[in-house]
């Protein structure tokens, strides 16, 4: 990161104390802190920008935001992906107004500056108006994002030239991600289109809800659970056999019962399908991960990507100021699934976790009120309680990597999310962000390891 982007250190350590278990409410509302989040977190993190399946062919593109920076994600002729700012270097106008499509050129509406699918400046309207020496077209393309890389179909980009690699960023969280991305041969795809909605709440509230807040589900979503499951409330949580796991600020909370999320999707055919492939999943990913799959579970990748493995909603929380975010919702399915199963999953997701979904409908109002109450200057100085399960850390779990806590009702992943938030807010450069969990699977294909206990054997 360009050092001058990181302005004077404000000090953020005092805003979060995960050992005591509290978070200062000002991180959910103050404009100064939000601006620093854009510089220190969004401009230095690996951010999800697209799934491979959204832009399969050369010239396919989509537009999205990295923090509040608008970017174009563009598939190249050689199959690689470039990500560049959606802003003309001449006067700054957008050069693309569509959500997605296929284009050979992105042309600015203002003065007709035209860029190819790699973002290079190709020409402009009435080019003769520039004298020799006025402009070097080769240096006036759309600004490229420093790094683009992908993990099993998910394309990430990072503005920070000094960033660690994507593999280092995801670290051992890859072991968990395989449950979603690699549970069947062929990998995943997103269903076409995208549902976007706007919620007047701080972006972190959505992320922390998915990273670890199983606790809210049984209460907030009692009505949704009963609607989807013949009047039955949420299944009771087995506090012995359920966990929080956190790596580098990413987190996954999960049971081991294998069915909870599948039942909530409300689609018997989908349950049948997964039960059919589960034995193969166990061979592919090991016993533990095949049990995690389908259980009541939720997960987020730091800073702003979330999903429910088993229910198959896949979503990103785009910050729009401290008081607002835009939620993009997709459906993630396995490529190998027959069309009718993909269709069943898509309908089930939109019935549960679309804006009109029986679960989603009750979340927005909570998050909005958690944010807007902080308009009060006295209210915003009150600390929030994050101590649930603070003494339940499991040291040296034989199978599960990461910072592991027992009991799905827990604030552990949320605490570790905010620890990573502080770590990034404080770190002068990306290399200074501490590892709270030293990677054990560095350079290895995590799919091949049923768990930490398989490491000595070198995988299956």
């Amino acid at each position: 990161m360009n050092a001058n982007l990181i302005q004077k250190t404000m000090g953020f350590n005092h805003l979060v104390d995960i050992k005591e278990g509290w978070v200062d409410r000002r991180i959910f509302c103050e404009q100064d802190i939000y601006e620093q989040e854009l510089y220190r977190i969004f401009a230095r993190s690996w951010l999800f920008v697209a799934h491979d399946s959204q832009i399969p062919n050369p010239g396919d593109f989509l537009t999205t935001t990295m923090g509040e920076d608008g970017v174009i994600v563009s598939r190249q002729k050689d199959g690689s992906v470039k990500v560049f700012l959606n802003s003309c270097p001449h006067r700054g106008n957008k050069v693309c107004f569509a959500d997605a499509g296929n284009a050979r050129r992105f042309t600015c509406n203002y003065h007709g500056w035209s860029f190819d699918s790699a973002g290079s400046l190709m020409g402009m309207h009435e080019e003769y108006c520039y004298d020799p020496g006025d402009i070097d077209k080769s240096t006036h393309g759309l600004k490229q994002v420093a790094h683009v890389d992908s993990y099993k179909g998910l394309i990430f980009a990072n503005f920070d030239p000094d960033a660690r690699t994507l593999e280092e960023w995801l670290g051992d969280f890859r072991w968990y991600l395989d449950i979603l991305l690699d549970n069947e041969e062929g990998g995943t795809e997103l269903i076409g289109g995208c549902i976007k909605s706007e919620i007047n709440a701080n972006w972190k509230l959505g992320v922390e809800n998915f990273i670890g807040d199983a606790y809210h589900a049984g209460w907030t979503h009692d009505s949704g659970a009963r609607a989807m499951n013949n009047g039955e409330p949420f299944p009771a949580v087995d506090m012995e056999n359920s966990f929080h796991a956190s790596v580098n600020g990413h987190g996954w909370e999960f049971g081991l019962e294998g069915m909870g999320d599948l039942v909530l999707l409300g689609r018997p055919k989908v349950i049948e399908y997964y039960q059919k492939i589960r034995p193969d999943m166990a061979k592919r990913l090991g016993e533990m991960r095949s049990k995690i799959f389908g259980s009541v579970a939720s997960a987020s990748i730091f800073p702003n990507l979330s999903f429910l493995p088993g229910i198959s909603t896949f979503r990103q929380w785009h910050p729009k100021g401290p008081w607002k975010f835009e939620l993009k919702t997709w459906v993630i399915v396995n490529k190998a699934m027959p069309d009718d199963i993909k269709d069943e999953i898509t309908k089930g997701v939109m019935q549960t976790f679309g804006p009109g979904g029986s679960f989603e409908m009750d979340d927005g109002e909570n998050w909005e009120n958690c944010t807007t109450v902080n308009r009060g200057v006295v209210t915003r100085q009150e600390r929030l309680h994050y101590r649930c399960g603070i003494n339940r850390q499991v040291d040296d779990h034989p199978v599960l990597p990461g910072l592991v806590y027992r009991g799905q009702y827990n604030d552990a992943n949320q605490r570790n999310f905010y620890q990573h938030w502080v770590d990034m807010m404080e770190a002068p450069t990306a290399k200074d962000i501490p590892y709270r969990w030293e990677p054990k699977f560095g350079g290895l294909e995590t799919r091949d390891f049923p768990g930490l206990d398989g490491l000595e054997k070198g995988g299956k």
Partner: protein
Amino acid sequence: MTNGPVQAEAPSIELIMSLQQVLYREARLMDAERYSEWVEMLADDLHYFMPGIETRYRRDKTDQVGDTTRMAYYNDTLDDLKKRLRRLETGTAWSEDPATRYTHLITNIEVELTDQDDQFRVYSNFLAYRNRNERDQDTLIGNREDIWRRKGSSYELLKRTIILKQNVLLSKNLNVYL
């Protein structure tokens, strides 16, 4: 949405009037959250569909309305819709208590005959206003294309395609039927 040609055989005034009344009655039931009565107006083989509409260039031929495998707010059978409605009956739908206040305005009603004697295509526009708590409010505007089927002395909704004019839904949820 289809744009049928002006028909040689026009629907009768009586038919137009009776279908208009059906749409108004439906709107009144939705305004009052009288969903059990609304469900009675829906056919067992209902398809209730509201696709998500992306912003795409004119040259882009992606079929955002006709392709029902893409992302949609609603892509429901009658059973699916009943499941959504069941949430309200649980008494624990917290974000509906206090109740949301609704008004549906239905306009631009146009009736067409179809090649099925007992089915009628009905176009309409809607403005659905919601207000809750102190000052939460939003307005949803769009078009609908329906097929209504004669059932006894009245009609039942067989198919509805809703095109909402928002790209980003400017609301925290969609606890409303259109």
